[in-house]
């Protein structure tokens, strides 16, 4: 049984780019996807900034009102059941399958599975329930269920791509994507599947995002240049984003046998919960610390081996503080480990976060740089001793880590390592 899974394909539909090249370029140069954004036509609403995905328009709940970039052909029978984030996911999967060089028979083989992360579509749910309620629940749209509930990605994408292996969805708020990756690695390690498509997606709209403002979790900073600044003393909440990111994971032997090239190998993962609060993370980051330790043990590495950590760091006052403390409890003050929070550039993708940032981590090996913290001006003193560079750093990393935390105090950490030279992407 393999101990790692090779990442052989990536797909990006994000606020900082719709292609791997654009995403890598903007991460390297610290170019953010945050803009002034009108969520609901209410000028009094305090949330003024978001990170939309360019080129996609969902101007109503009916797919006939939607548009997406040329080059992605979504058949009628597929688009009818999709929510907006399903369109993002479709496009990201198409990109990743092409990137990995997979053929139709590879995708439809029972050795290939599909794990999805999505919170569903509150937007579609809201529209369809409103329509249903208007008829006293007598008459509703036939696609209302499959286009809105939390399994919407797995229902639609498994049918479209004719997946015959394992199919499941993960719902653990902001750790959903990371859970999908972790359990996908397990499927490959256990020999149950040879290849896993992992997709995570989220919508950007009032229905998905503004309930977080009711929790006081969103930034009310009106300036895209300074809203979302992980680890800064003036951080005031997260900035939402939408999109979809895909990883293709394969048993390394299979990937090499078919001549595929790998960005990285996922060599371990760990999870641990805080046992503390429904929304706020443990004040010392206890669960996240344990998740990192478990991931390191699983990957057979020491924390001192880690070249880079992509922090969860959503830019909330409490969350970044607990993560900084968890990191400081495991990283020596003089360690070379670089830490950055890329949500300063992308915004926070909720269910998508873990997969988006795992994909960023995968790019560090082939693109030879570690993302920086370009919006960090005054680091919070709680970060003392952490290496938080402002600019990205040219590097040839061997081991990187990806942290994710979600509601209920759930924490997931992945370890990625440089791929075996036998099949590394140059």
């Amino acid at each position, binding site marked *: 049984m393999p101990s790692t899974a090779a990442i052989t394909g990536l797909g990006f539909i994000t606020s900082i780019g719709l292609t791997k090249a654009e995403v890598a370029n903007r991460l390297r140069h*610290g*170019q*953010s*996807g*945050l*803009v*002034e*954004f*009108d969520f609901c*036509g209410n000028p009094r609403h305090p949330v003024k900034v978001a990170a*939309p995905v*360019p080129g996609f*328009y*969902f*101007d*109503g709940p*009916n797919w*006939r*009102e939607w548009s997406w970039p040329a080059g992605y052909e979504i*058949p*009628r*029978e597929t688009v*009818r*059941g999709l929510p907006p984030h399903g369109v993002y996911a479709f496009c990201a999967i198409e990109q990743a399958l092409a990137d990995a060089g997979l053929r139709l028979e590879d995708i439809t083989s029972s050795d290939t599975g599909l794990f999805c992360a999505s919170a569903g579509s509150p937007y579609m749910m809201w529209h369809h329930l409103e329509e249903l309620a208007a008829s006293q629940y007598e*008459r509703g*749209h*036939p*696609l209302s269920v499959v286009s809105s509930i939390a399994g919407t990605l797995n229902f639609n994408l498994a049918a479209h791509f004719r997946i015959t292996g394992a199919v499941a969805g993960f719902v653990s708020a902001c750790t959903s994507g990371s859970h999908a990756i972790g359990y996908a690695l397990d499927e490959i390690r256990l020999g149950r599947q040879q290849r896993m498509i992992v997709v995570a997606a989220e919508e950007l709209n009032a229905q998905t995002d503004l309930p977080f403002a009711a929790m006081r979790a969103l930034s009310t900073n009106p300036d*895209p*240049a300074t809203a979302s600044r992980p680890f800064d003393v003036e951080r005031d909440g997260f900035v939402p984003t939408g999109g979809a990111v895909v990883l293709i994971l394969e048993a390394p032997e299979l990937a090499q046998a078919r001549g595929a090239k790998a960005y990285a190998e996922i060599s371990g993962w760990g999870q641990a919960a805080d046992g503390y609060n429904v929304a706020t993370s443990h004040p010392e980051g206890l669960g996240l610390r344990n998740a990192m330790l478990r991931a390191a043990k699983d990957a057979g590495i020491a924390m001192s081996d880690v070249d880079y950590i992509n922090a969860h760091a959503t830019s909330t006052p409490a969350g970044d503080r607990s993560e900084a403390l968890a990191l400081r409890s495991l990283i020596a003050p003089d360690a070379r480990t670089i830490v950055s929070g890329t949500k300063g550039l992308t915004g926070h993708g909720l269910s998508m976060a873990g997969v988006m940032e795992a994909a960023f981590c995968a790019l560090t090996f082939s693109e030879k740089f570690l993302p920086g913290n*370009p*919006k960090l001006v005054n680091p919070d003193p709680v970060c003392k001793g952490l290496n938080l560079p402002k600019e990205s750093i040219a590097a040839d990393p061997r081991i990187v880590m990806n942290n994710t935390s979600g509601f209920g105090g759930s924490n997931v950490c992945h370890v990625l390592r440089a791929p075996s030279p036998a099949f590394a992407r140059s």
Partner: protein
Amino acid sequence: MSTPSVSPIPRRAPFDPLGKFPEGVKAAYTKYLQTADAAALDTVVLAVVRDYVPKTVVLPTDQPLPDNARLIADLGFDSLAISETVFFLEDLFKVRITNAEIIKVRTVGELRSFVRAKLASLPARKR
């Protein structure tokens, strides 16, 4: 660091269910509403059927749908596509169509006749 500017998402206009249909279909719909002309109704129903055909089935666009074409066996409809077509027609003509009624409809011709009879049975004010 620089922040690229992206236009905010434009405000939505009221949704027109026939908005993306050919002008001839829109005109036929208006004509049916004004005159209850059965041939105009057929034009609308056939356009709706064609619109709900899954894209994987390629239909010649320059030929009318044959009356004997079976929705499922020939045109590739599944139960959801039939439900969607019914839902759309219900909205367009302000009628309710029951499962018992639609389950009897198998071909394009049967659907055409069914909608004609259904609408003809309504009081004039409901058209």
